[in-house]
């Protein structure tokens, strides 16, 4: 769980709240302009973490001193250590290591190539299979990895089929679907992990609630993509034969270095999903948490590379991990500075609009906010505010309003989520330039449909 809010003896004065709020806004703007200022996420949040901590120390709002552990023990820790939600960090670290290690067995590329061959090279079937693949991969992997795998395969397979003109439509659809697939499980996206953890929603419970929306939304996205991007099936037998011959050249076994590790990876992946599903209810494991499960499976998978495991560590996205760590520090300082309390008051006004209007407004506001900046700080801030309010239980639609909003807002703009940033990067790599405005124009019908459908789902089905 994210560290509990620690109230300072006196509420900070308004000018101090405003000053710290300005710091938070600056950081969020910095993250939104990441590409423009040419700085990695971790550097942006790192700078603001240092500045916030120093400013907090000067302002006397930080709770220095010993930290009380369960059992009444006290331990001296730097103030920024308990500020970090290590439960979330261990889930991200463990899952990333695990997924990266098993992906080296070739299971994901094997699946992707098998589906490509199964499509027979027909563009319509190919898009349908890649959409399913994107949703599936986004659910099990993280959105960025899913987009990288499916996006790069789309580029290679469409080039092979001589259908490069369809690549833009494929990549855009896949980019949007990563955020739909990212809703499927508790570990599919970082906002899910943060909000789900704070709300106390278990893995299986999350899946049961999110799956119907995800499937329906993905199916509608596919239909819209077929219509808007003019994806046509192959008509003549000669076309079908030629396309089938071209995709027959793909060898799904090419990336498999060890058949034994390939099979073991399937078993490990199934075990990982099963254990994550049951982590909240299994004796002892429930106490150790999902981070333990993720790290445990990562260690078992990495035994295959026990003499060269440093390469597995090198493959980690350390920028992303340090981004989360620094972000938690900044948000913790903002908590002590009263910024979250002030934001909570504003959000409280939305919530108080009523069960229907309030929840809907929260979903739309989350989506709009997440469209222009990173959804992780948004989820962390919203989560802390909701967790601090009385009477909001795990089954409250308000949590789901935040979860849907934070994930789906990424579909409005090319900077709305890390996976859409990757989709645009693949487009640029293949000389398919798409401006910010052009992306918004193409994505808007999809994004509106996703949010409208989520509104109906949260307000009608989950309320």
């Amino acid at each position, binding site marked *: 769980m994210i560290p509990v809010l620690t109230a300072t003896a006196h509420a900070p004065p308004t000018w101090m709240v405003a000053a710290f709020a300005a710091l938070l806004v600056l950081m969020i703007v910095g993250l939104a302009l990441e590409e423009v200022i040419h700085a990695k996420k971790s550097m942006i949040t790192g700078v603001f973490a240092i500045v916030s901590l120093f400013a907090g120390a000067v302002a006397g709002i930080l709770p220095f001193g010993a930290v009380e552990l369960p059992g009444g023990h006290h331990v001296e820790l730097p103030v920024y250590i308990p500020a970090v939600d290590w439960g979330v960090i261990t889930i991200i670290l463990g899952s990333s290591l695990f997924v990266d290690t098993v992906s080296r067995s070739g299971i994901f590329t094997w699946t992707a190539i098998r589906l490509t061959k199964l499509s027979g090279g027909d563009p319509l079937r190919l898009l349908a299979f890649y959409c399913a693949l994107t949703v599936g991969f986004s659910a099990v992997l993280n959105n960025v990895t899913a987009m990288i795998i499916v996006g790069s395969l789309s580029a290679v397979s469409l080039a092979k089929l001589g259908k490069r003109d369809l690549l833009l439509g494929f990549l855009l659809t896949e980019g949007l679907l990563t955020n739909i697939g990212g809703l499927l499980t508790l570990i599919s996206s970082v906002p899910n992990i943060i909000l789900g953890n704070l709300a106390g929603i278990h893995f299986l419970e999350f899946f049961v609630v999110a799956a119907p929306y995800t499937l329906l939304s993905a199916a509608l996205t596919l239909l819209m993509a077929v219509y808007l991007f003019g994806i046509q099936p192959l008509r003549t037998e000669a076309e079908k034969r030629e396309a089938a011959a071209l995709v027959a050249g793909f060898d799904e076994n090419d990336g498999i270095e060890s058949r034994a590790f390939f099979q073991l990876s399937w078993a490990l992946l199934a075990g990982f999903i099963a254990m994550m599903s049951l982590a909240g209810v299994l004796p002892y494991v429930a106490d150790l948490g999902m981070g333990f499960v993720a790290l445990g499976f990562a260690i078992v998978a990495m035994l295959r590379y026990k003499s060269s495991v440093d390469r597995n560590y090198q493959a980690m996205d350390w920028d992303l991990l340090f981004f989360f760590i620094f972000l938690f520090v900044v948000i913790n300082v903002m908590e002590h500075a009263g910024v979250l309390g002030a934001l909570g008051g504003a959000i409280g006004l939305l919530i108080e609009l009523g069960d229907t209007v309030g929840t809907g407004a929260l979903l739309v506001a989350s989506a709009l906010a997440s469209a222009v900046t990173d959804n992780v700080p948004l989820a962390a801030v919203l989560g802390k505010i909701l967790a601090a309010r009385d009477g909001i239980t795990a089954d409250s639609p308000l949590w789901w309003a935040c979860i849907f909003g934070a994930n789906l807002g990424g579909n409005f703009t090319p900077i709305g989520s890390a996976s859409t940033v990757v989709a645009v*990067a693949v487009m640029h790599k293949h000389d398919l330039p798409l401006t910010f405005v052009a992306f918004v124009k193409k994505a808007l019908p999809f994004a509106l449909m996703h949010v409208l459908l989520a509104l109906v789902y949260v307000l009608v089905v989950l309320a």
Partner: protein
Amino acid sequence: MSSDSRLDAFESLFRSAVKDVFTLQAPRLERVLVLVDTPADEAAALQESVRGFLSCIDSAHALQWEVASAEDWTRGPTPPIVRAREVVEERRPDLLVTRRHQLGQMGNIPYTLGSVVDVLTQATDVPVLLLPPPDFALPSSTDRVMVVTDHLSGDDRLVNFGVELTHRRGTLYLAHVEDEGILEYYLDAIDKMQSIDSELARTKLPARLLKTPADYIDNVAAVLARSGVEERVVPLVRLGRGVSAYQQLMAEHDIDLLVVNTKDDRQDAMDSMAYALAVQIRSRPLLLL
């Protein structure tokens, strides 16, 4: 690892999974022209021995044989080299049979194929079967045929000629020799680059270079087996140094016929390995495509 690096890594993975697929397609072989600078009776005798050598296709394709002897192209006002080309263009054979050093004044020196062969291989698109000089015996059949190139993968035409000219139940050697000297030159450059792991490059680069032709040969063998072709396919994929590597392979396998490209997409084969190979390998027939 950044998203850009991972994207690049996965694209490489998928590109690697795209294999060249072999399509079995018998080349058109109906008319054969034997063009030599000897009198008609000697040319006719040579034609008979070539028919024996190519017995595997002679009966299967019911080949029409023609002879252009010295009388047909070496006498008259037109320079013989020009006339030789005209004869080929007039008769439009599917296969041209000849010897090196036609009209040669320099004897069988191992430094050139002679100007006539040079012109015929470069100025026409007809495959040329280059026979060994008369002091070497012509093999009795094409039991062991070797297709050689330094870029075998995807070269269906070369392989299809190899398949067609290999005697039924004979052995087709598909050889790809990656030039060790060039590879070493690049690896030396990589050794001096901080951003590339030299150790990794020394392991992965040669393996990658050899994997593509090896995969292609596997596919050729599978396609031939599925099509009921009874020839045995033997892959010979390795690192080596130019012509000497191919000479070594030929000696190891006692090859009856060597199939090489002289005209490919790069249009430089006759200036590089294929020409050197054709010049130096004098004891065996060569099919120059």
